[in-house]
Each structure stands twice: as C-alpha cells, then as structure tokens.
C-alpha cells in the first residue's frame, strides 16, 4: 500500500510541475452550450483571429450566472454566452455586463416580434430560437397517437402520460415558453392550457436538456423544447419531429461581455466574429442547427430549414412583452412548481378521472354528469391569484424580501400548494361521481 501511495504522490508531484504553461491572447468564455456547439466556433474564431485562443468553460446557465457574480471581485471571465435572455437580464441588473457596439452592421433589429439586442447594448442576439413541440416518431407510432401541432393538442386525453417539460424555474427557455402561452392566451385561459398539459405530463425535468434527451431515447414521446434541440437531434439521426405551434415566439440566444473583462479586446473580437457572416455560417452545422440572425444566410440553409424572417407563420406570432414577463417571473415559476410540478400525482389523478368520464359521456349522454364534469374542469382551472395580483408589489416583495410584502415566499408557496391539492382532490371526486352516474 505504501508503494501505491508513494506512486500516487510521485504522479501528482510531476503534475504540479507540468501544470499551467499557456499564456497569450486567451479569451475566457462561460457558456451553457455543449461541446458540439462550442468546438466549431472555437476553431472558426481562432482561425479568423490568429493569436487568440478561446478558453471555453462549460457551466449550466444558473451556475454560470452565480459563478460570474461570485467572482466579480477578481473577474477572470471575458464573455457570457447562453440561450436564455432572462439570465442576461439578471447579469445586466447586477451590473455584471459591459456596454459594447459591435462593428458588424446591417443585422435586423427584430426577429419575429422580439428585439434582437439589448436596447442598452449590454448583450447581443446571435441566433434565433423558437419554442415548440418535439416528438419521437417511433414512440408515437408504437402508441398509435398522431403528431401534436398546437399547445391545445397536448391537453387531449390521447396524450395522457406522454408529455415532458422542463421546470420553468430551472430552465429559462421553458420559462419563456410558459410566459408566451400566458401572454398569447391570457392569464386564466393560459393557465387552463398549462394545467391541461400538466395533467398529461409524464415528467417535469430539472434541466432543459433533460426533455430532448428523454424524447431522443424514447423514454417519453413528446417534449416541449427549443427548436434546435430537435433539429440537431434530427441531424444526428434520431427519429424525431418538431412543430411550431401558432402561439409561440422567437427569441434570440445571446452573448455579452462581462464587466471588467481581463481581455476586453479579445471579447470584442469574439462578439464581432459571432455576428459576422463567417460566424453565422457555423450555426448551420449539423450538430448546431440554430437559426442565424443574419437573414442572408438562409440561402445556405438545408432543405426545410425554417426562416423566421420570411416564413409566414413567424410573422403572425404574438408580441412578447418583456416588461410584463419580468414583473412576474418569480411568481409564474413558483406557481408552475406549486400547482403542477409538485402536485403532479394529484393533478394527473384528477385529469385521468376526467378523461374517463368524458369518454363514457361521449358514448351515452347524461346532463347531470356533464354538469359535474364541468365543475371538475373549473376546479382544476381555478387559480389562487389573478394576473393583477401576480404583478403586484406586495407579492413581488414577498419573493425579494422587499418592504411591501404581506407574506413570506414560503407562506405563499404553502398556501398555493394547499389550494391546488384541495381543488385537484375535489375535481377527482366530482369526475368520479360523474362517471358513476353514467354507468
């Protein structure tokens, strides 16, 4: 044993000597993107800007934000590069980003209805992403269910236990999807749709990539994801499809220069490269497949690649109001967690009972049962707070610890959870009673 340990110590001593040798024009970038995305960009950037090396540090978006925040006193990071605009908003509000004006000009100001860049110039969109529904063809065929096209489809009984979503409190991109549905359909109707989908969920994952992963491997049939997850999976040979529902939005994925960047010049060079035609072309690689922000590039895109600047379906998309979204971010995420993620068993139980009663009702009509079923549905749809309350100062302060709070976050969570548990249980009882009437 002594020998083994001595050998280990020798190895480590050798490593101490060998560690750290490189220096030069190192550009450090913190990103949530996978190696399949960062490797081609690293190669392209270093080829286009000789002398610079790109040092990629992979962190999940939330760890990345925390990391940049915790290390601001002696910052070693030049750039932050990720999908979710809310992460950049969070960085910007904590003064962790710096202003910059890219040298690349002539890029559009809006994609769909969303502004490409931060109006104050702190971060820049380099690719567009739309939200939609990804499905596994083999799974759907084996279960004999059709491909869903709209959010509303996912509330139908045939999709019971076949859908996956990432928790919006964990995934900035899913949060935007939820917010898009709420803005597109309105607070009450939107939550109705979300709870309808919620009743059909098979799983709520804690990472964005958990959803496409589950769909790719066929563990679940349908997932609510960003488009490029599906496109890059298709390019890798997975039997998956993707559809943009009509209520959706296209938002940019961003890059921003971190305040007090140790290599400001290098950081600027990277942003300019990313927005240049060369950099934008990299987005079309099979392992990446994100929508470029430069409209000219769509001519090089593969057959069937969506074009958010031309295709009709993107023009009719709703206007996403970032201010409304920002005001209620924490409330919406917490509501989703407390009403859907953490109450999944109860919600699914009630949903299953309603589906069973509906099926029986379709065969033989019964007015009283129909009434009960209607009550059950409205019990599920009931919300503990209104849209106005969600954006109110009292409730926002409960989450931030501000002065006007009337309750602590933990108290609100308990109230909302209890509210949902009670309503779902009552809904299940009503639906079961309805079924009993029909038999």
């Amino acid at each position, binding site marked *: *044993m*002594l020998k083994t340990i*001595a050998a280990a110590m020798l190895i480590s001593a050798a490593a101490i000597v060998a560690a750290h040798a490189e220096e030069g024009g190192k550009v450090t970038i913190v990103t949530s993107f996978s*190696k399949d995305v960062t490797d081609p960009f690293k190669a392209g950037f270093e080829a286009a800007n000789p002398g610079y090396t790109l040092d990629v540090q992979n962190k999940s978006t939330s760890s990345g934000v925390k990391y940049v925040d915790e290390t601001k*006193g002696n910052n070693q990071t030049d750039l932050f590069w990720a999908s979710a605009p809310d992460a950049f908003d969070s960085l910007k509000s904590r003064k962790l980003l710096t202003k910059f004006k890219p040298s690349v000009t002539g890029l559009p100001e809006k994609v769909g209805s969303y502004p490409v860049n931060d109006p104050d110039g702190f971060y820049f969109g380099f690719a567009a992403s739309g939200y939609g529904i990804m499905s596994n063809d083999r*799974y759907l065929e084996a279960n004999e269910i059709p491909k869903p096209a709209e959010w509303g489809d996912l509330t139908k009984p045939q999709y019971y236990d076949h859908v996956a979503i990432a928790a919006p409190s964990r995934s900035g991109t899913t949060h935007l999807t939820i917010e898009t549905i709420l803005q597109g359909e309105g607070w009450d109707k939107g939550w109705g749709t979300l709870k309808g989908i919620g009743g059909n969920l098979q799983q709520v994952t804690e990472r964005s990539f958990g959803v496409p992963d589950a769909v*790719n491997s066929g563990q679940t049939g349908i997932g609510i994801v960003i488009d490029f997850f599906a496109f890059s999976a298709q390019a890798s040979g997975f039997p998956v499809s993707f559809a943009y529902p009509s209520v959706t939005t296209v938002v940019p994925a961003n890059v921003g220069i971190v305040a007090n960047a140790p290599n400001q010049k290098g950081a600027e060079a990277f942003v300019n490269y990313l927005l240049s035609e060369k950099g934008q072309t990299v987005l079309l690689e099979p392992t990446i497949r994100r929508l470029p922000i430069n409209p000219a590039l769509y001519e090089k895109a593969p057959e069937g690649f969506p074009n958010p600047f031309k295709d009709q379906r993107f023009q009719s998309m709703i206007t996403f109001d970032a201010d409304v979204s920002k005001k209620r971010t924490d409330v919406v995420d917490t509501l989703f967690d407390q009403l859907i993620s953490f109450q999944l068993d109860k919600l699914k139980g009630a949903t299953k009972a309603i589906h069973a009663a509906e099926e029986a009702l379709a065969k033989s009509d019964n007015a009283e049962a129909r009434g009960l079923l209607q009550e059950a549905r409205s019990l599920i749809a009931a919300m503990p707070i209104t849209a106005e309350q969600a954006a109110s100062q009292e409730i926002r302060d409960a989450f931030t610890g501000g002065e006007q709070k009337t309750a*602590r976050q933990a108290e609100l969570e308990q109230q909302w959870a209890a509210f949902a548990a009670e309503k779902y249980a009552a809904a299940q009882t009503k639906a079961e009673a309805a079924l009993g009437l029909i038999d």
Partner: protein
Amino acid sequence: MASVAAIPINRISAKPGQVAAVALIALFLAVFLVIPAGTVIYTAFTEKGTGALTIVNFLDFFRTKLFQQSFFNSVYVSAMSVVWGTLIALPLAVLTTRFEFRGSLLIQTLGFIPLIMPPFVGAVAMQLLFGRNGTVNLLLNDWFGFRIPFMEGLNGVIFVQSLHYFPFILINLSTSLRNIDRSMEEAAQNLGSSGFRLFRRIVFPLAMPGYLAGASLVFVKVFDDLATPLLLNVKDMLAPQAYLRVTSVGLTDPMGYVISVILIVVSIFAMWLSAVAMRGKDYSTVQRGGGGLSKRPLSRGEAVLAYGVVGLILLLVLSPHIGLLLLSLATVWSFSPLPDGFTVAHYTRVFGESSLYIKNTLIYASLAGLIDVIVGGAIAYLVLRTKVIGRHWLDWAATAALAIPGVVLGIGYLRTFYGISLPDGTPLATLWVMVVMALAIRRLPYALRACYAALQQVSQSLEEAAENLGATKQCTIRRIVLPLMTGGLLAGFVTSFSTAAVELSATLMLIQSNSDAPIAYGLYVFMQSPAGRGPGAALGVIAVIMVAACTLLSHYVVERRQKTLGMNK
C-alpha cells in the same frame, strides 16, 4: 505516506500532542469545510431582504406540507435502500470471504463498480435499460403485454439507490469478515454450533462494525443524494428540494439553505445513532494476520447455487454499466431494445482529449483519497483511543460534509478563496489544488467510516502489550495499529478515490480551464447535445475501466499482503 502521516500521528504521542492533532484537523476542517459552507448556509438564518438573524425560516419549513412529505419520503427511501443494499451485499460478501470461491477477487472488484457511476451517462444508460421504454420493458411489453415501473416514483429511487450504493456495505462488511479471528469461529464449532446459527450468532455480530459503517453510510448518502431522485424526476424528497432552490437563476431563496441545515442535522444524528448502537460492545479480536475466517469448500450443489446467485446479482448490479457500454458503441438508440447499429467512432472522437482528463482525474482523486485516509485515520484514532476534548466534534464535522450539496461547497470555495490572490494575480480559488480539497472534503466521510470500522476491530490489548514492552505510542501506532488497519485504510482510500473520480457538482463550479478538467467535467460538456451522447458514454466507459483497474490493483496488493502475513506466522 510516512512523512505526511507522521505529522498528525507524532503529536498523539503525548497529551499535548493529541490536543495539537485535534487543533490541526480542526483547522483543516474549518478552512476547507466549515467556513466555506458557512458563508453560504448562514442565509438559512437570515430574513430575506433585510438580512436580519431569524429562525422563522425553520418554522416555515415545518409548516410547509411539501417539506413534511419530503422529509418522510427521504427517511423511507433511505431506510429501504439500506434493506435492499444489505440483501444484495450480504451474499456477495459472505460467499467471497467465507467459502473457497473462485474469482473472489474479481467479484470483490466487480461488486464495487456500481459506485463508479459517471454523472449523466449513467442515468441515460439506466433509463435505456430499465426506463418505461427501456430494453426490459419494451421486451416485456412485446412478449407479455405489461411493464414493470422500475424507475418510477419512490420505489424507482430505492431500486436505483440500492444498486448504486450497496458497495459501501459490501466493502466494509468484507473487510470486517476478513478481520475476524478464526479462533472465535473454531471455538463456536467446537461447542457444536454450525451453519446459519454460527453465522447469525458469531460471525455476523463480529462483523458488525463493518456492517454498521456501511449501512450508516448508505443511509446518509441516500438521504443526501440528489442526483438519483432528480434523474427519476422525483422532487418530493429533501435533497432535490434543496438543490432545486439553491440553483435556480435569480433570487436567493433561504429555504434551500434551511433544507441543507436539516440534511446536515439528520446525517449527523444517523451517524451518532450508529455510534450509540456500538457503544459498550467490544468487537476487537486479539489474534490477527491469520487470513481471517477459515474458508470452507463448497459441495457441487452448493457451488451451482452460489455461482447462480452471484451471477444473477452481478448481472443486475452491473446492468447500468452494460447499458453504458452499449450506448458508447451505439449509432442511434431510440425506443428500441437494442441500438440500431454499432460503431467505434465515439471512442476515436474522445481518444485525443481523454488522456488529459484521465491524468487530471487520477491526480485529483488519488490526492483526495490520500488526504481522506490520513485525516480519517487520525480522527478515528482520536475518537476511539483518546479522550481529547472536541474529538467527537471532528467526527461530526467531517460527517456533515456528506450532507452539504456539492454546489453549496463550490460556491463557498469561490466566496472564501476567490478574494485571495496568488503572487501572479490569479485568485487562489482557480488553482486546481482547490478542486482536490473540495473532493477530499466531500469524500472524507467515506474514508472516515472505513478507518473507524478498521480500528474498532483492533484490540486495544495489542497496543497495551506493545507499550508494556517499552514501545512508544508513536512506535505502537506505526508498528502495530497501522499494519493491522491496512485493509480498512485501503477500503477507505478506494472508496474515496473511486467516488471522487466521477464527482461533478462541486467541480463544475471550480474548474477554471479545460486543461485542469477531470473526466466528469469532460462528460458533462459532451452530454448536453444529441450528438454528444455517444462520445459522453465512451468517456464514461473509459472512466469506469480506469477506476476499476486501480481498484483491482489495490485489492490485489492487499490480498497478497494478507497471504504473506499469514505465511510468516
């Protein structure tokens, strides 16, 4: 090792020396565990917004139904995992130590591999085999029209956790069984005891320190583990609740830290309970080095049965790794019992980079294991052999490390060490040594339990005899205690080493550049895209093989050593 180990041990020789040892270890734990974790966890005791001290958050914890339910679920899952883990580990441990069984060494090594579950890929492989539409269920559904929900709900968590953590019981129990004095068994046989009764009344009780060390580790580890519940999307357990709240973007939610505190308290309580169970009982044996229990040959019928049982258990516990191997060789694997096609392209893709990752992993994990054995051994000695004030606090503090989420420790390290600049201007926290310290702290409880069990089995009368013959305390430790503890120390090193080799959560915060990255980080960057699944799995296979080879080597060394000791006698 002698030069490093001598530092704490020298000081035990006299009373002031013991105090100094306690102080030294306390300083180590304070700098690398208590202070960094404290900078993060103190949030639990503050009011949101104002930052004033309060305990209202704890009241909120006990008032919230979700947390009550989570607490109950965590206790239930942990207890059941101990039960199932025991059922898996017991036959393997007994058959390989008590019987003349070919391939014992191989089984000891293979039975240990489940601990080395690389992050992310292990999860994907498990789903592909046992998930709702995994191989087993797709076949069952095709043939018989039903599925078994292996991976769903709390039972799914228990299933995966037992498969994953039973090696803690296996390793510690096997070590204990090997250390039992043969004369005890022979005495019982002379008095007419045999078979199951002999095992139940004599052998198993004598192996109790090892079993309890393993079982308490399994309990606490499952209680504090967040990866498995999250992989199965089970959220109503405590550790995932803490994690979800600590790592969300944006605001700081004190409840995440409140849960962390609760996790720490429960973990320490469980360890304390297992210590109480052992109190007042003497499990040490005087005669050592005889190669442990006598090994009985198996009759033909028994052999068939034994090999059958062992084969089945191994097939079950190694299935995630079989799945991993398939995944690393698969082209596309989606909703089908087996992959569509096979390729070695994933291995060629990771080949160039993996040597760097392997080198880093070996350095980090072996240094972490070494630190753990030294500190763990010293703490065990102080607790069991001395009466120095504060020795139990060392034990509890080290144990608390189990309950601190890796990400909390990672943030704590950034907060504590980022402000300190090295001479060249880079922050101390960016030095790779910090990764080693974080890994050592996170894996210290494993080594500590093993050292504890090993020392409990060494009879104090041996040390007293040595001292009566004029040996100094220092000499006694070096010549008597350490050699007799070798098996346990090695078990501790191996557990710390191999689990540190695949640790990710704390490292993800601390890794500052690709050239410092261990293999788990390499895996992480691959496993975020569809095309990266195969290469990620290939890296996972490489990691498992690497760690398994190191384990096999150390088992081999111990086995040979025990043999030579036996012959000398």
